[in-house]
C-alpha cells in the first residue's frame, strides 16, 4: 500500500507524463476491444436484417451487391430487373413478392420505391402523420427526419443522378406525409415512396398538359389520327398536386418497368424450396439469393480481415510496450537522485522495483478504467456507428 501511495503521488505530480502513458496504453487496449464491439454489432445488424429476409430476387451477378442494395440501401445499384419478374412470383402462388427500386437519392438519403407490403413485412410503424396514399408522397425514416429537420407537411426534392446531367430528369418535389418510428435499422435513413413514385422520379411515369387536345403547336412534332408526337419542349410536372395528379400516366408496358431487387416471402418452406429450384439454372436471367448465406460469406471475409488487423494491432502493441519500457527506463535515469536518496535512507533495490511496479499497476488500472468507460460509452452508439462506418 505504501508503494501504491508513493507511486500515486509521483504520477499525480507528473500529470502530463502520466496522462500520456495512460492514453497510450488505453489506445492500444481499446482499439482491438472497440473493433471487436463494432464487428460484433455489425455482425448482429447484418445477420438480423439478412436473417429476417427469406429470399432476394435480382439480376444475375453479384449476390453481395444485390443484398447490400436491397437490405441496407447501399449506393451501388445492381443490374436492374423488371416488373415481369415480380408478376412471375405473384402468379406462382408460392410467395409474396415485395418489389424494391433503390436507385435514387434525396439529399444523400436513399429513396426506396416499394409497396405497402414492405412496411408490414419489416414491422415499421408510423410515428407521425400517416402512411403513403397518393402518388408523389413520401414517408421518411427517423434519421432522415432528424438530420434534415423535416417532418409531416414539408417537402423533399429528389437529387439528380448525375450532377450536371442537363438532359436528365427533373427533380421531383415529394410531400412528406409520415415519419416512421425508429427501427434501429437501415430503414431509419430511407425515404420511402410508392414504387410508382420512384418511376416518376426516373421519368418513366410523368404528367404534363394534354397534348392531344392542346393548342400549343410548339410542343408538337407530329400529329396523326391515332397519335401525337410531343417534343422535348413539353414541360413535365415536377410536383404532383391534386390539380395535376390525373395527368400522370405510364408509357410503355408496365411489365418492362424496372426494379433493383425483390424481397420474396415464400408461403412456406416447401414453396421456398420450389422457388429456389426454379431459379437455380442458368436459363432464367435472375438469381434467387438467400440473404443470410450471402451476408455470412461477407462476415467470414470481414473476420479474416479482422485477423490481419489483430496481428497488426499486436505488432503496434508490442512496439508501444517497448516504447513504454524505454520511457520507464529513461525516467529511472531522471530519478537517479530520488533513488540515491532512497538508498541513503535505507531503502533497497526492491523498494525501487516495488515503486516502479506500483506506478505501472496504477497506469494499467487507469487505462483499464478508461477502456471500460470508452467501451461502455460506445456501446449504446455502436449500432449507429456501424451503420455510418460500415453499411452506409
Amino acid at each position: 500500500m505504501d508503494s501504491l501511495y508513493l507511486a500515486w503521488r509521483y504520477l499525480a505530480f507528473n500529470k502530463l507524463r502520466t496522462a500520456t502513458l495512460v492514453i497510450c496504453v488505453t489506445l492500444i487496449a481499446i482499439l482491438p476491444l472497440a473493433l471487436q464491439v463494432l464487428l460484433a454489432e455489425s455482425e448482429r445488424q447484418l445477420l438480423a436484417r439478412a436473417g429476417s429476409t427469406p429470399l432476394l430476387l435480382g439480376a444475375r451477378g453479384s449476390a453481395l451487391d444485390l443484398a447490400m442494395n436491397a437490405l441496407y440501401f447501399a449506393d451501388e445499384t445492381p443490374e436492374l430487373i423488371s416488373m415481369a419478374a415480380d408478376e412471375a412470383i405473384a402468379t406462382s402462388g408460392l410467395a409474396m413478392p415485395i418489389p424494391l427500386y433503390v436507385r435514387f437519392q434525396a439529399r444523400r438519403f436513399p429513396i426506396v420505391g416499394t409497396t405497402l407490403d414492405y412496411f408490414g413485412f419489416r414491422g415499421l410503424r408510423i410515428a407521425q402523420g400517416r402512411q403513403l396514399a397518393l402518388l408523389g408522397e413520401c414517408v421518411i425514416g427517423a434519421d432522415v427526419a432528424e438530420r434534415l429537420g423535416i417532418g409531416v407537411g414539408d417537402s423533399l426534392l429528389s437529387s439528380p443522378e448525375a450532377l450536371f446531367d442537363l438532359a436528365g430528369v427533373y427533380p421531383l418535389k415529394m410531400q412528406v406525409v409520415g415519419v416512421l418510428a425508429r427501427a434501429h435499422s437501415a430503414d431509419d435513413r430511407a425515404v420511402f415512396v410508392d414504387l410508382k413514385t420512384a418511376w416518376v422520379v426516373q421519368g418513366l411515369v410523368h404528367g404534363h398538359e394534354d397534348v392531344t387536345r392542346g393548342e400549343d403547336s410548339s410542343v408538337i412534332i407530329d400529329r396523326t389520327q391515332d397519335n401525337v408526337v410531343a417534343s422535348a419542349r413539353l414541360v413535365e410536372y415536377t410536383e404532383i398536386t391534386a390539380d395535376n395528379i390525373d395527368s400522370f400516366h405510364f408509357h410503355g408496358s408496365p411489365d418492362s418497368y424496372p426494379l433493383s431487387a425483390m424481397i420474396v416471402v415464400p408461403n412456406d418452406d416447401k414453396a421456398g424450396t420450389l422457388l429456389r429450384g426454379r431459379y437455380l439454372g442458368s436459363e432464367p436471367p435472375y438469381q434467387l439469393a438467400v440473404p443470410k448465406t450471402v451476408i455470412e460469406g461477407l462476415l467470414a471475409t470481414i473476420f479474416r480481415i479482422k485477423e490481419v488487423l489483430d496481428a497488426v494491432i499486436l505488432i503496434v502493441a508490442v512496439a508501444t510496450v517497448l516504447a513504454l519500457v524505454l520511457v520507464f527506463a529513461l525516467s529511472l535515469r531522471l530519478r537517479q537522485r530520488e533513488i540515491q536518496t532512497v538508498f541513503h535512507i535505507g531503502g533497497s533495490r526492491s523498494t525501487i522495483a516495488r515503486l516502479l511496479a506500483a506506478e505501472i499497476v496504477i497506469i494499467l488500472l487507469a487505462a483499464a478504467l478508461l477502456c471500460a468507460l470508452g467501451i461502455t460509452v460506445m456501446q449504446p452508439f455502436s449500432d449507429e456507428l456501424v451503420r455510418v462506418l460500415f453499411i452506409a
Partner: protein
Amino acid sequence: MIRIETLTFSYPGAEFTLNVPDFRIEPQEKVAVIGPSGSGKTTLLNLVAGILVPQQGRVLCADTEVSALDDPARRAFRISNIGFVFQDFELLDYLNVLDNIIHPYRISSALQLNVDVRTRASELARQMDIGDKLRRRVDHLSQGEKQRVAICRALLPQPDLVLADEATGNLDPRNKGQILGLLFDSVAAHGATLLAVTHDHELLPHFDRVVDFNDFRSDAP
C-alpha cells in the same frame, strides 16, 4: 558510539584511497569533520552509515560491526539507527512536507508506519516551526524550511546517530545559524550523536570536537 579501526577504502578504478587508522566518537558527542574538497569526508560518512564497505578495517556503530553486515542488514540498521541530513536536502518534490518526513517509514519494512509515528512527525514539524506547512508541497518551501523537513525526516526514526553532510551548505547566513541550532537542539533532545561534515569554519565552535581530515592519510588527486 562510533569506532573506526584501521580502515582503508578506495573506489574501484580510482586512485583515491581513504585511510583512517583509528577514530572514535563518544555517545551524544557533536563532532565536526573539516577538510578540503575531495578529501573523502562524504566517503567517511557513507562508510559509517554502511552505504560503503571498507576493503580493510572495521566500522562499529553502537557496538554493531556495520562493515561486517550484509547489504540488507546494513540497510535495516541504517534506517533504524542512523539519520541522514544532506546538503541539498534530497527531499521528494512530489510529496508534501508530512509525507517527506515519514518517507523512511514507507520505504522500509524495518519501520512500521502508524498513528503514533504520524503524531510524532507532526510534533517534530511543530518544533521545527513548520507545523503549519504539513500539507504543503516541498517545492513551495524556502531553503531553510526544506532543511528543517530534512532534519525532521532524519530524526523521526529516533536514531542514535545523526550524520549531516554539509547540512548548512546551501543556506544563507541567517538560516545557517538557525538550522544548526535546531539540529543541535533536536539531536540533544533525542540523546543522539552528531557527526557533521562542514566547510563552514564559523560553525565549528558550536561542536564538541573538530576533526581535521588532513589528519587522515589520503591520496587525493
